[in-house]
């Protein structure tokens, strides 16, 4: 009797979540980075809330992008180093299923966690709570898209000893549209203009990457295992 792709997906997500919670310091690192970077801006710029509000969406977004990049390198690396990636690749499941499970688990502990703490930072930067809906939606879509893009980069750099810088070079240029539309959406909501257009664009980017990235990342992993 074989195991279906759906149950394999759930099993792998559970495995990766459990592994993450066994190493809480790795879990907290991006969150702490996000909090520190974003709270440094008021100190460097100005303590005036009106001034801060103008740059707040950009600050929030740059902070979130950089924080999620921090943990991307570990996406496949730890499994590749201890040989469990080989075992996963020989498990009779498609590599795309393995990529999807690992990316979703990664997003849950990095991107989703960033989204959850972002209201705290938003309040500190003077963003009114009326904008929170748009801000949270855009951040959720943006970080998820970044995780999909990152899975390709992480797959390509997993064979390198120090792939972190290369990974940023591969992923950050691709993440520019996210930054533009994501910060743009929050900006428009702040100015009380409709932000649906930007949100739809983010959503379409998210759908686009989640359809294609698993195949690209699986192909990259196949090369890395060779």
């Amino acid at each position, binding site marked *: *009797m074989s195991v279906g792709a759906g149950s*394999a997906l759930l099993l792998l997500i*559970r495995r990766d979540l459990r592994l993450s919670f*066994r190493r809480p310091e790795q879990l907290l690192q991006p969150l702490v980075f996000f909090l520190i970077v974003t709270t440094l801006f008021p100190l460097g710029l100005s303590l005036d809330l009106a001034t801060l509000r103008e740059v707040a969406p950009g600050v929030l977004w740059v902070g979130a992008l950089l924080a999620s990049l921090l943990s991307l390198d570990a996406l496949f690396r730890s499994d590749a180093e*201890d*040989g*469990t990636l080989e075992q996963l*690749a020989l498990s009779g499941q498609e590599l795309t299923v393995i990529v999807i499970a690992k990316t979703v688990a990664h997003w849950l502990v990095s991107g989703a966690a960033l989204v959850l703490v972002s209201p705290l930072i938003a309040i500190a930067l003077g963003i009114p709570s009326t904008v929170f809906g748009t801000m949270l939606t855009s951040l959720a879509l943006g970080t998820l898209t970044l995780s999909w893009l990152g899975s390709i980069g992480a797959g390509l750099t997993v064979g390198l000893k120090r792939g972190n810088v290369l990974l940023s070079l591969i992923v950050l240029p691709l993440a520019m549209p996210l930054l533009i539309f994501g910060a743009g959406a929050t900006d428009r909501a702040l100015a009380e203009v409709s932000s649906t257009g930007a949100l739809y664009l983010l959503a379409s980017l998210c759908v686009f990457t989640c359809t294609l990235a698993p195949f690209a990342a699986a192909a990259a992993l196949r090369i890395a295992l060779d």
Partner: protein
Amino acid sequence: MDNGDGLAVEGVHAWRGERHVLKGVSCRVRPGELLHVLGPNGTGKTTLLRVICGLLRPDQGEVRWRGEPIGRIRSEYQRALAYASHEPALKGDLTPLENLTYLVGLKRPVRTPELRAYLERTGVAHCADLPVRVLSAGQRRRVAMARVLAQEALLWLLDEPYTNLDAAGSALLSALLEEHIGGGGIALVVAHHEIGASGARGRLELAA
């Protein structure tokens, strides 16, 4: 065309970078047989095993399982094989039981008591709930062996399985191998010394 019921490796050539590692390796292993792969370091024993399990595509030649090229029946073939690399491939932060649950669980539905029985079999039941990182190298090897058993696979591909095992562990491994091929299984074992198991067996010596 070969319609055999076991594993057939036909004229496999493999290059690792600039090095021509496998130079036309051919072998056949039928159910109930063990193939002992030997050779000095660096002669491509691990490469051969990786080619056979399908992780590495040979530059020339073919691997067939029951007469079919393995690329064509990938997931069926992978469910029929259990591969143990020279590293134990366990997650240090997970317990042996969790390691088995997640890896074996991808191949076939498993229950915890069943996995505990396999760990018992390889003599590591008492550390089933400790994180793997606190186990000794020999204990990890035994956990990896339990994982091979738990996959209930027909084809075992074992890379240096005797490393780090004590005398009792080596005897246990030989007994398990004997039982496996006695039950109609197939085993390919890379090992530097003699394998204690009796039964039908072939030798494949790779030269430098």
